[in-house]
């Protein structure tokens, strides 16, 4: 079976598992909302201040949400040892990782879709004029976040304290995503909005480097 087809089937499986209960999505969305509200207490949430602090706040909330929502993609498989079954399937091991990366990517994009309008309303920032470019920034950033996050979830799936360990491993590695995502978003929220190509390139570079690294080294993590 080709890798693309195998990965598609696996994404469908991940989505089906999630949408039976929607536990992960519901919890993550509520978590991010709560973080957004809590952040508002740490500065004066006027429109001008929000434009200054908003982008960083948004990306930090996403980073934390990502670090907390990704472990289930492997721990869910442990209950019935289904990862072993997946490994037995005659497919490229990269397809398994890719399926999980894409599923996590979709979950986080859905979270962002719920989050952004609420952020715009709560902090009086208008996102509509720059929506297309904003989407590009979030897609690139989220891809990098979920690629490294999924690999690190596999890394920590058999470790003790894994819920604490994953953010600890993931967040420093995501420094470039945080900086580039924040700066790009800040550029788009500025008046007049502009999107520095530098930050987009950095996000693209991050995605390419870590997708390649996952492709080369990821399969070692699926061994039992």
């Amino acid at each position, binding site marked *: 079976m080709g890798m693309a087809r195998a990965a598609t089937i696996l994404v469908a499986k991940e989505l089906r598992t999630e949408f039976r209960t929607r536990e992960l999505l519901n919890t993550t969305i509520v978590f991010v909302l709560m973080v957004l509200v809590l952040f508002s207490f740490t500065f004066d949430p006027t429109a001008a201040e929000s434009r200054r602090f908003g982008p960083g706040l948004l990306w930090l909330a996403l980073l934390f949400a990502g670090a907390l929502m990704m472990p289930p993609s492997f721990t869910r498989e442990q209950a019935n040892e289904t990862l072993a079954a997946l490994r037995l399937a005659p497919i490229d091991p990269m397809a398994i990782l890719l399926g999980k990366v894409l599923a996590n990517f979709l979950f986080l994009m859905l979270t962002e879709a719920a989050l952004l309008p609420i952020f715009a309303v709560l902090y009086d920032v208008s996102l509509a004029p720059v929506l297309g470019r904003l989407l590009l920034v979030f897609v690139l950033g989220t891809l990098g976040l979920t690629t*490294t996050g999924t*690999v*690190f979830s596999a*890394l*920590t799936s*058999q*470790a*003790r*304290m*894994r819920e604490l*360990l994953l953010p*600890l*491993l993931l967040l*420093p*590695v995501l*420094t*470039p995503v945080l*900086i*580039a995502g924040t*700066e790009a978003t800040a550029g788009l929220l500025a008046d007049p909005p502009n999107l520095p190509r*530098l*930050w987009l390139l*950095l996000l693209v*570079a*991050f995605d390419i*480097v*870590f997708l390649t*690294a996952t492709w080369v*080294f*990821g399969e*070692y*993590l699926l*061994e039992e």
Partner: protein
Amino acid sequence: MGEEMRVSWLPAVAVAVLLGLAGYAALFLAPTEQTMGLIQRIFYFHVPSAWTAFVAFLIVFVANIAYLISRAPKWDWLGVSAAEVGLAFCSAVLVTGPIWAKPVWGIWWTWDARLTSTFVLWVLYVSYLLLRTLVSDAERRAIVSAVFGIFAFLDVPLVYLSIWFWRTQHPQPVIGGGGMDRRMWPPFLLCWAALMGVMVLLLRLRYGLEALRHEVEEMKIDRERRKAIAS
């Protein structure tokens, strides 16, 4: 079996002598810097420490890749040993930096590219060591830490670039730019050689310790197995 921890005196004495000479050269032979004065002499310890730390982290990266390819435990031992030793030098960089910065810049710390990325580097390798303490199975631990080590190392240039674009204030490197007095070079290189000597010495000791640990672990497993058979 048969790996044992030998302290070889000759290299240790040689490194100690080298270190003494390097300290003397840095403090007394090197010319005093014009604007910063005596405090600049910390540079002979600060920059070579950074270079030595990078060499150690490069060894971690090579060992990680070699482990994934060969699956020989010795590469895992080398990886963890180099990470610990590199972290020690990286800590020295982070401590000597502010000591120099306070009198020269007037502040202990600034969020500049070189400083901040060194700090992120330090955090990355602390996480590497922490990860190792939380996975019990030796083979699994070796695999996951190798993959994390590779990801961390690949991340370093991206971290550096992103912070560099974000802001920079560190004095631009004087090395290679021709900004450094020619008489500063010999003490500088001597200091680097001495610190590299310390690094290799520590690395060898730490590697021997890791090999012994491995042996003890094997013995424990063996004993458990025998107990299980006996009962």
